[in-house]
């Protein structure tokens, strides 16, 4: 496979002379750079905007429950009679928001954009191992987006059982309206999504293993590639399990099987299901679900490693330890899923085991955080917007990761499980951190994607307002959670126990509205710069990695002549004995220069 791909791609004749039509260039493109942009626009921008908008509606409902709201009236129509949001659609919003953000934006959007863009460019390949599968992968993703959004237009509304879609709620149409056609569409969409993700991941894995250019040994790979590679491996291991869970659920729903259901009496009748268990579904779901959170986070950490090193003008500190911790996280992430199920009714002894493995995973996470901080130490920090978002990522990763220590302790989880404490935890550690990774990546590689620069001042404005709002939203939320307020409550005004949290909820919503609105500045900056941004130089950030040795103009096959040869790792920044403070990977070692033993 590797050999034929090489032979095909090295055939310069084929590479440079075949005509491209509009359709093959922009729509059914097989070029990884174009596919990356397609993912960016569909996954990050479109789905991201929809997801953020939903979250703002959720927040307004929580802060000002059951009050008429023009936005609800306009966008929810019959589900907000008189502008008052209905309780069912509240749950639907929560569900689809979570699904869009976790899967569509931060899995497909993030990996799809940056793995596609960077894997071939940073390892010195002409394209992905299979451009065709890559194209299929994108279009499957596109279809899954359409199906998911379409579920908003069905009679009974979209899926509303939470992004974790635990049965029996998700299995029984009579349990809630969203479990009818809406849930069917959710399951179909996710099945297509998983197919897309698997094709993408296999492609990334094969490409990294087979298509590295001469001299690009695994120990010279930039950490971005390590992260994308390991992410793809985790995806291939865990997504099929979710697929099987989805298929079994479809069977329970439509074909009368009892994998997840047993002994149910609902709306006056006993159902025939016998012998299944919802806990089984929870195991299957979280066997994907926990690795999934690292599928979201690792690429962001990879991006950050690259950007922090480049902008600190320093080697990333502890390259080997960074690779080792990525591998350790990947391994451990497959044996901690039970921490989402401490009080699901599973054997408490299992709870002890999962507490142990969960707190183990905090160790490689801590190593990574310390290594980032040490990379900054005695650097010469270039405060580009990408750098700010990367530093921001480290900050939110620490804040959110630390509360993981509480949640991972089964005894403590008893009282905070499923409260706002969990919401605060995972939004900081996963949501915000990964989002910062996406933004950092966009600001950093925009010149590589569009040949133009984004406006830095708007970038600064975007970062600082977002950073303040992120803490403003999620920091106080810990306290609400510790007060015992359950998540996914449509309103808290039905009993007075939590009335002392109402003002805080309103403040949080204010921060959320400001933080959501400021993203428009980013959107403006992005769109404006695509067309009118300053033309980019070849290597604006003076970076070492190979993508900056390719011409600004996109060409099929990436490099006009031969592929670059690699002589060193990608972190020779400020290396003594060189005039410049960076030495690209394709610069041969000087006479007597030692390659760092890393």
């Amino acid at each position: 496979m590797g050999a034929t791909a090489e032979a095909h791609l090295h055939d310069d004749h084929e590479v440079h002379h075949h005509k491209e039509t509009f359709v093959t260039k922009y729509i059914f493109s097989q070029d990884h750079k174009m596919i990356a942009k397609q993912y960016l626009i569909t996954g990050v921008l479109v789905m991201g905007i929809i997801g953020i908008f939903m979250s703002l509606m959720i927040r307004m409902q929580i802060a000002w429950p059951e009050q008429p709201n023009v936005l609800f009236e306009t966008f929810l129509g019959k589900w907000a009679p008189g502008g008052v949001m209905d309780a069912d659609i509240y749950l639907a919003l929560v569900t689809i928001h979570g699904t869009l953000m976790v899967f569509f934006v931060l899995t497909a959007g993030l990996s799809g954009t940056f793995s596609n863009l960077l894997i071939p460019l940073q390892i010195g390949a002409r394209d992905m191992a299979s451009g065709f599968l890559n194209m299929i992968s994108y279009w499957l993703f596109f279809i899954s987006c359409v199906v998911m959004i379409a579920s908003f237009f069905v009679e009974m509304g979209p899926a509303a059982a939470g992004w974790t879609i635990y049965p029996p709620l998700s299995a029984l149409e009579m349990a809630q309206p969203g479990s009818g056609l809406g849930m069917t569409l959710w399951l179909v969409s996710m099945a297509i999504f998983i197919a897309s993700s698997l094709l993408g991941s296999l492609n990334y894995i094969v490409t990294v293993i087979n298509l590295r250019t001469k001299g690009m040994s695994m120990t010279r790979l930039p950490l971005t590639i390590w992260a994308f590679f390991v992410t793809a491996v985790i995806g291939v291991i865990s997504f099929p399990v979710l697929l099987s869970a989805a298929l079994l659920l479809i069977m329970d729903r439509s074909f009368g099987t009892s994998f997840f259901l047993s002994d149910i009496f609902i709306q006056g009748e006993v159902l025939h299901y016998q012998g299944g268990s919802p806990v089984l579904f929870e195991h299957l779901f979280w066997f994907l679900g926990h690795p999934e959170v690292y599928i979201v986070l690792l690429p962001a950490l990879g991006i950050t490693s690259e950007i922090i090193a480049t902008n600190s003008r320093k080697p990333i500190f502890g390259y080997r330890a960074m690779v080792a911790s990525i591998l350790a996280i990947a391994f451990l992430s497959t044996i901690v899923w039970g921490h989402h199920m401490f009080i699901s009714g599973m054997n408490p002894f299992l709870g002890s085991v999962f507490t142990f493995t969960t707190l183990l995973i905090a160790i490689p996470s801590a190593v990574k955080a310390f290594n980032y901080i040490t990379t900054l130490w005695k650097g010469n920090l270039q405060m580009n917007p990408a750098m700010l978002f990367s530093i921001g990522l480290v900050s939110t990763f620490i804040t959110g990761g630390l509360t993981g220590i509480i949640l991972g302790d089964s005894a403590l989880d008893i009282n905070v499980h499923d409260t706002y404490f969990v919401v605060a935890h995972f939004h900081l550690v996963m949501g915000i951190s990964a989002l910062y990774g996406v933004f950092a990546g966009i600001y950093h590689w925009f010149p590589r994607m569009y040949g133009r620069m984004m406006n830095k001042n708007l970038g600064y404005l975007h970062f600082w307002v977002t950073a303040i709002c992120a803490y403003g939203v999620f920091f106080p939320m810990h306290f609400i959670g510790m007060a015992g307020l359950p998540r996914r409550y449509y309103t808290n005004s039905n009993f007075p126990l939590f009335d002392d949290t109402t003002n805080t909820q309103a403040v949080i919503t204010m921060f959320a509205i400001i933080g959501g609105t400021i993203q428009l500045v980013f959107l403006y900056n992005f769109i404006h710069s695509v067309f009118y941004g300053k033309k980019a130089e070849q290597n604006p950030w003076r970076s070492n990695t190979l993508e900056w040795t390719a011409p600004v103009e996109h060409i099929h096959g990436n490099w006009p002549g031969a592929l670059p040869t690699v002589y060193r790792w990608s972190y020779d920044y400020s290396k003594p004995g060189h005039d410049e403070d960076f030495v690209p990977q394709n610069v041969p070692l000087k006479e007597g220069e030692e390659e760092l033993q890393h």
Partner: protein
Amino acid sequence: MTTLLIFVIVLFVAIALWQMVKIFDLAQVGGPSSQVADDKDNRINGYLMIGFLIFIYAITILSFYYLGDLPLIGNSASEHGPGIDNLMVISMVVIFIVQIVTQFLLHYFAFKYKGEKGRKALFYADNNTLEAIWTIIPVIVLAGLIIYGLFTWNDIMNVTAATDDEDPMVIELYAQQFNWKARYSGEDNVLGQANVRLIDLDRANILGLDEADPYAQDDVIVTELHLPKGRPILFKMRSQDVLHSAYMPHFRAQMNCVPGMVTQFAFTPMVTTAEMRQNPDMQDKVKNINEIRLENKEDIEARGQDLVYEFDYLLLCNKICGKSHYNMQMKIIVEEQEEFDAWMAEQTKFAASLN
């Protein structure tokens, strides 16, 4: 009204942003490299990093100051509660210290080493001692937390060992969309057999008890959970339709209710409702809540609720279960044994409750 206000605010923010965007845009002069950070940008953002560090500290302090009495720490109403609370405090102190120190290092370095033209960074790629230090320190700290945590967990969850010799009172918590029932096991302290297939609404056998089971005859089904102070309680949880979770935050207790299986949780209530109402912290909390309620008087009365709040323990549903998930609670009353006995004596036994 509030909505209108928000819209006006959002509108103003949007206009302000738009104006700023235009100004920034016009100020954009020079070549392509003008979009790469220069010394001035580094300086300004370096200072902003310190500003942000202060912001993080400030929001931490403000949150503790204004919201510090929200967390359920101290004042637990169950025997095992203080164990959890202790562990919580210890963990919080640990992560608090780590948070303060690491955020300081991160933002301070970002400020201290802000770039300057002509300066060269230190080429420093590796240090095994350092790596070892920050691997081993977390290992030690986490090992401590894990060990403490696991002892606490085992104490709580090992219901058979903990309650066998103490003769716990067995109570079933029964969940359905969207309410709770409690079933007491009666004098025999054994719950009668039950299955949702036996539910017979015409005969008012709403929990599906086996009418032939002798143990079922003296069971008592209620919609308000009464618990005698100081007596270990073994809860058996059941659900008839979807997942629910029986969450009793003041007792530091929670367990999912799963259709098709019986889950369990045990604790000993130690503080009666009356005693909790006399607790000074609780009185402050209730006073605070009542002040807030007074401010929203109209809303609350429009909803038909009592304006004045008096503390009660609640059992909340904490697993998304459908439309009225947010409104699925049951009142819990902890009382002295005599009061409990008196209350129990008034309840109807299952055998007598059938039509």
